[in-house]
């Protein structure tokens, strides 16, 4: 696959790994946060940790929209399916997330709720066209990458005058989450979480560009390297961060130049501002209330806002007391620091958000890497 396979080349991986090993300064630690769940997934799936020197520590960030989706929001979607008898269209990622009362969207479907898995927001629109007698709600999640398509279908729904279509909007913003981490007590005051640099998200950046990260580099003096999704991209970004840290630089660099520019996709950005506006505050699972971190549908498109249409009130639902997701999402703890990791909390029976999505820190670690903690007799 062009532009995919070349960036998974094992021989080139060795070269980058050797370069990283050669350039880390003795006695120095490099604590790097990969913000994006896709990068967490890539690191686990390709075993990148095996190729890094011990001085480089990867900390998993909260860039997983499913992981940070509050239980209360999923409850709203389940309620729409079971009580309002609406057709709820959702991406596959959300189907199994456990919500209140031991339900999930998948379980709601088993109870007779009309829950449909879709691949694209356009599919939700098609469902609404096909069932003019039913309410159809698109359960929209995602960071800035996924928001422009939602904006497009809302505009399209308006153009077509679709009276039975609405969107339950849970779109969240990356810079706000990064600020939240950098402002957390562990980073700011206590210094218990040393954070030396960020690997910036790949596809979010195709939309917002590299410019928004300049603020973090300047204000917090942390280097940011935007990395593509493939494992060579991630490794190259790590090398670039190591170099910045060695040279005491705090800049925004772009490794993913083949898809990301400084200003990003202006057309998509304009579209998003046309349809959405900032919420003053939004609850992120594991992080609590984060100011100016999420979007809601503008008054001009109120007709397509499920929250207005159905008079929805979000209930805040606390996570299990044993759950360490909050600390893990902020990078303060590792999955294995959590008492319920791997025992009560597994991908089959997830307790908290980090285990729920396949790219959550705990799920990725459990599925791909937990054998590292256990000594295994290597084959002869």
């Amino acid at each position, binding site marked *: *696959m062009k532009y995919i396979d070349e*960036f998974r080349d094992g021989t080139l991986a060795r*070269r980058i790994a050797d370069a990283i090993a050669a350039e880390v300064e003795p006695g120095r630690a490099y604590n790097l946060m990969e913000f994006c769940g896709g990068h967490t997934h890539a690191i686990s799936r390709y075993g990148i940790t095996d190729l890094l020197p011990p001085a480089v520590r990867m900390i998993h960030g909260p860039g997983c929209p499913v992981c940070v989706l509050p239980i209360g929001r999923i409850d709203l979607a389940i309620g729409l399916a079971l009580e309002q008898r609406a057709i709820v269209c959702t991406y596959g990622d959300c189907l199994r997330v456990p919500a209140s009362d031991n339900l999930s969207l998948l379980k709601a479907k088993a109870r007779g709720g009309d829950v449909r898995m879709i691949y694209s927001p356009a599919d939700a629109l098609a469902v609404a066209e096909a069932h003019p007698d039913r309410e159809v709600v698109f359960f929209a999640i995602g960071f800035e990458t996924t928001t422009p*398509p939602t904006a497009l279908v809302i505009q399209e729904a308006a153009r077509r005058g679709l009276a039975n279509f609405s969107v339950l909007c849970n779109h969240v913003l990356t810079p706000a989450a990064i600020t939240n981490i950098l402002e957390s007590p562990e980073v700011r005051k206590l210094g218990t979480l040393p954070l030396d640099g960020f690997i910036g*998200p790949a596809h*979010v950046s195709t939309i917002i560009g590299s410019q928004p990260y300049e603020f973090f580099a300047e204000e917090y003096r942390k280097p940011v390297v935007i990395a593509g999704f493939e494992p060579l991209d991630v490794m190259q970004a790590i090398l670039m961060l190591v170099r910045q840290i060695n040279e005491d630089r705090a800049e925004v660099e772009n490794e993913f130049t083949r*898809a990301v520019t400084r200003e990003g*996709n202006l057309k998509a950005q304009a579209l998003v501002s046309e349809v959405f506006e900032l919420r003053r505050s939004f609850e992120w699972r594991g992080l609590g209330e984060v100011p100016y971190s999420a979007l809601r549908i503008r008054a001009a498109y109120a007709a397509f806002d499920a929250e207005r249409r159905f008079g929805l009130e979000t209930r805040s639902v606390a996570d299990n007391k044993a759950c360490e997701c909050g600390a893990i999402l902020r990078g303060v703890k590792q999955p294995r620091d959590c008492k319920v990791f791997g025992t009560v909390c597994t991908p089959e029976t997830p307790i908290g958000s980090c285990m729920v999505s396949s790219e959550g820190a705990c799920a990725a670690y459990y599925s791909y890497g937990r054998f590292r903690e256990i000594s295994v007799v290597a084959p002869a």
Partner: protein
Amino acid sequence: MCLAIPVRVVELRDGATALVDLDGIRKEISLALVDGVAVGDFVILHVGYALSRLDPEEAERTLALFAALPDAAARAATA
């Protein structure tokens, strides 16, 4: 976070849509977010929409960066 893949545009269609190809798998997607796409271009595809065009020169440049790093033999020689 966002699953997105580079795909090749094989046909432009009405209503800002295109037929794209990835190793023989073909799908119709929307070009509503990206202007000026031509047949033969590569775009980044996410949830049925092209998010941006992939710049082939930059791709080559990035790969060249990797290849420019010394391999194990060269590294040993200069050690």
